[in-house]
């Protein structure tokens, strides 16, 4: 990928740029200029930003704002693994034969360390998922709010950086496979007091999760989501691994956490990120998990897979649930995946049903 000031006119394939900014003025100059250039070329434009930032851009665009589609990244991208299928792919697919232009800010200050990790993973995967697509993505990053390593991480995951309206090659850009390997090597922590079920059939895992979730006061709709997610993860393991599996469950800081471990190895890095062709019967399980959950993290390797699932509570400071999975093969267990479902309240009291779905 080359970076020139006139790239909007001449680009082919994916143009994936990060835009570091330090204040609202820099943010608006960068994003509004980018959007106006795309509108001038009659390109479809989607702006997906976290809370409040859409309104800033809308106000600055003035009369041009209605020509732009806005989406709430805090909702659509709560699970960063959902951004590729539900935001980027959907918008690109809705405009076949045209270059779609997206401004997407996936990371903000209140993201947890695990969410940060999944965001960086997401950014690396964008380069693989859309390598040959006519798609331009600008990713603003608020350096004032983010951890110090963010600048290096966005340089690693974006082929180009855009500052003051000019795009230049990112010197730190790293092969996405290398970035993903580095993240996969990070081991999630599992508390020693986690409940554990070793199982052979998906139904055993599902029934245990139903019992745990019901006991923890999970509302019925959320329980349905959770049972689907757990069944996809353990079903995926059954189909691809055929080895012993375990599911672990614990509560932490108002969260339910589920972790599934198996001996399989998910080789498709984009599993769960892109929908398969309509006529294909299989291949939607992990996509469903990503759509259902607030955080999905898959850790996979030759010695097994772990899938984690976490549920955050928007009405409280510390509501989380996670599902994770790990291997129980001959090699030391190694996690493959983590997920976090849509918000719920962990309180077992009836009034929890007032929590928004």
């Amino acid at each position, binding site marked *: 990928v080359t970076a020139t000031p006139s790239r909007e006119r001449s680009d082919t394939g994916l143009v994936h740029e990060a835009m570091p900014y330090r204040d609202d003025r820099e943010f608006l100059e960068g994003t509004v200029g980018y959007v106006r250039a795309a509108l001038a070329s009659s390109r479809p434009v989607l702006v997906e930003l976290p809370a409040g930032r859409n309104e800033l851009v809308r106000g600055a665009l003035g009369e041009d704002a209605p020509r732009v589609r806005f989406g709430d990244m805090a909702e659509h991208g709560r699970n960063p693994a959902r951004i590729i299928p539900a935001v980027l792919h959907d918008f690109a697919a809705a405009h076949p034969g045209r270059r779609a232009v997206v401004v997407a800010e996936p990371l903000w200050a209140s993201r947890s360390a695990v969410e940060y990790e999944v965001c960086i993973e997401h950014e690396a995967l964008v380069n693989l998922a859309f390598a040959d697509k006519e798609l331009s993505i600008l990713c603003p990053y608020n350096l004032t709010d983010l951890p110090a390593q963010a600048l290096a991480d966005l340089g690693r995951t974006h082929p180009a950086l855009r500052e003051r309206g000019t795009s230049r090659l990112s010197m730190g850009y790293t092969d996405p496979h290398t970035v993903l390997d580095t993240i996969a090597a990070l081991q999630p922590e599992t508390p020693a007091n986690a409940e554990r079920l*070793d199982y*052979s059939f*998906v139904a055993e895992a599902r029934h245990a999760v139903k019992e745990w979730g019901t006991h923890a006061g999970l509302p019925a709709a959320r329980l349905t989501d959770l049972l689907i997610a757990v069944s996809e993860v353990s*079903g995926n393991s059954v189909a691809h691994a055929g080895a012993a599996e375990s599911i672990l469950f614990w509560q932490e800081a108002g969260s339910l956490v589920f972790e599934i471990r198996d001996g399989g190895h998910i080789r498709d890095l984009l599993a769960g990120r892109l929908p398969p062709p309509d006529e294909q019967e299989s291949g939607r399980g992990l996509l469903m998990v990503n759509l259902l959950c607030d955080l999905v993290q898959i850790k996979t390797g030759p010695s097994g897979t772990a899938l984690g699932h976490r549920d955050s509570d928007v009405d409280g400071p510390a509501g989380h649930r996670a599902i994770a999975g790990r291997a129980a093969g001959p090699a030391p267990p190694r996690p493959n995946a983590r997920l976090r479902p849509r918000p719920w309240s962990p309180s077992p009291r009836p009034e929890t049903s007032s929590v928004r779905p």
Partner: protein
Amino acid sequence: MEGTGTMPTDALTIASLRDSVGLKIAGEVDADTREQFMQALAQTVGSNGDTALDLGGVSFMDTHSVTAVVQCAKRLHEEGGRLIVRQPPDSLRRIFELLWEGDRGLRLYVSGERGEP
């Protein structure tokens, strides 16, 4: 905690409907049982005309099995028939909502409500 390590023999039961072309299913459809479900589905929906799936006894369906139902509905629709789904489990409704709602080429004919599974 130890799992039972065995799959109950009633994990999934499939019978032909008496009142119309179709199947009456009971149990749970997931990675361990879906092969049986999808074979029965493919054999039944092979014939033309309306086909019914009575899912009142089904407490769970996974994404793969719901996809099979949706694809059967599409095939039937193209041939001028309908797939009528009776009393689907919440999991079918949820998976359908997330993957196919708004797909104008697709209609699932759902009859019958039911309470919590």
